[in-house]
């Protein structure tokens, strides 16, 4: 799978990220680094343990990373959960969690197929 195909599979903005980071090599490198980013796992743990303040920061971080990498789909769902947590709406955040998880899984699986 090429980088462009990978972005299509995870619902991302390939053109945008290429403009900002300028080289395919750099985008490739950071897309792979996303697999090591712990913010999703931390968010999941914090939600389960009802540590909502920590959960907010993790969601916020993940949102920022997705924005930087142009992972539009995951950015949108992580933004929603971030805003729910910022406003203290924990029930809504819990409701959104499965969607975030599904988007995250899809993103990770696309990256793993990257050649």
């Amino acid at each position, binding site marked *: 799978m090429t980088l462009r195909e990978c972005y299509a599979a995870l619902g991302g903005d390939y053109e945008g*990220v290429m403009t*900002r980071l300028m080289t395919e090599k750099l985008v490739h490198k950071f897309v792979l680094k996303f697999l090591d980013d712990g913010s999703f796992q931390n968010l999941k743990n914090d939600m389960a343990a009802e540590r909502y303040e920590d959960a907010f920061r993790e969601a916020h971080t993940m949102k920022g990373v997705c924005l930087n990498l142009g992972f539009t789909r995951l950015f949108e769902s992580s933004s929603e959960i971030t805003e729910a947590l910022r406003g203290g709406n924990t029930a809504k955040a819990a409701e959104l969690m499965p969607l975030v998880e599904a988007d995250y899984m899809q993103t990770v699986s696309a990256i793993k197929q990257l050649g």
Partner: protein
Amino acid sequence: MSKHNKDRQKVLIVDDSKMNRDLLSEMLGDEYDIIEAENGAEAVAILRKEVVSISLVLLDIVMPVMDGYGVLAAMNSNHWIDDVPVIMISSDNSVSSMRRAYDMGVTEFISRPFDALIVRHRVVNTIMLYAKQKRLVSMVADQIYEKEKDSRLMIDVLSHIVEFRNGESGMHVLNVQMLTEVLLRQLVLITDKYNISEADISLIGKASALHDIGKISIPDHILNKPGRLTDEEFQIMKTHSLVGASMIDQLTYYKDEPLVKIAYKICRWHHERYDGRGYPDGLKGEDIPISAQIVALADVYDALTSERVYKRAFSHEKALEMILNGECGAFNPLLLECLQKSSDAILKNRKEKKADLYIVGREHIALDIAQYDDLSVSGKTADLLEYERMKNSFFSSLSDEMHFEYIASPAMLTLYPNNSGLLAEKTLINDPLNDDNIREFTSADDLAELLSRLRKTTPEEPVTEISCQAKLKGEYHNVRIVCRSVWNKESEYMGAVGKIVDCGVCTA
């Protein structure tokens, strides 16, 4: 990642996401050395340690432990923000959070998603702007300092001429100047009735150096008569105040300069008395300008506490007592209160004496300039210098060794007190090679040998030492003097720092 290079500027990246830090350092790493912090508390710890070497901070807002606003608050309270620009990484571009960040001193924003070119441009521009401003401030400070130094120098030379004829050292003028400024600072704390500004204090202090210029017209045999003056001689002596005033009054130019106006008042009326029984005009009470009242008191105090051909020096306490008892003239009660309340400051200033005037000068100017908003730099350098001095003098005071600093031109030696009880306080010696105390301390041959070894050192091999004998507390001791020569950027020899180690009493 990035190689550490001495000449490259350092950027501190503060973000809790490793991905974001990596991305930013990837964008900047070619041109800058990068330091990373993963929360605000870490960033503050790094800044505390190496703020001087950091050229810019990239700061995230939402972080665990301490957030970006916390870092900004710390940077404000420590005045780091004045020298280190901050670019905020904003995620939510809400107006209120941006305003708050600007209020706290942030220079620029970078928003996500990061764009490599924009990040690089913002960083380069911000660093350059700050560097340019710092250079400008430093240039202005240098120029003001030079000007200030020259004018002080001219006044010093002028007043020294008078004292030179008088057989005095030149210290009287400096002492009167210092006392005048100390008393004025105390006066403004007690009352605002004279409406004296900080600029007035500096002006009156400078003008005070001219109080006795009229003495230039007094014949030698009267001016330097060791015994008591006859009535007739005293009448002639008394003319110096009017003569001084008319010398200033007859200046063709500059008559309207504040300095000249004040100098006129001081020359003319520094021998008036608060009770109206002084000369030349018999002015009474507040009819005597406050500048002249203050200089009169400073003049009397310094005359009492200094040694003269016809008298020994009285202690501060004795002089104070004599003045308060009205034995040496009549003064404004407010000024007498100032004199009493300034005792500590006066004693401290007298010890530190002249040399500090010039050393401290430049920092003061830099700090003054820093107060103008549009040219704001903090006294970061001055603070650090002050901190280093404090540290040196503390460590030195705990040690049995005596630490010193030697400046080659103009020659000056600073000795720090140590644990041996030999020296109670920091001592400055001008022209140490010709100083009686230094000659007493060690032989001219040993001193010459030490200086010649220092001269042979190089910036690459600056350390030298000499073992010799020196007189400590009246006994000859074997001592080891270890020095490190100091060189400036142009590799010119500036002087040396070093220590004197006591190796015990000579047995021979």
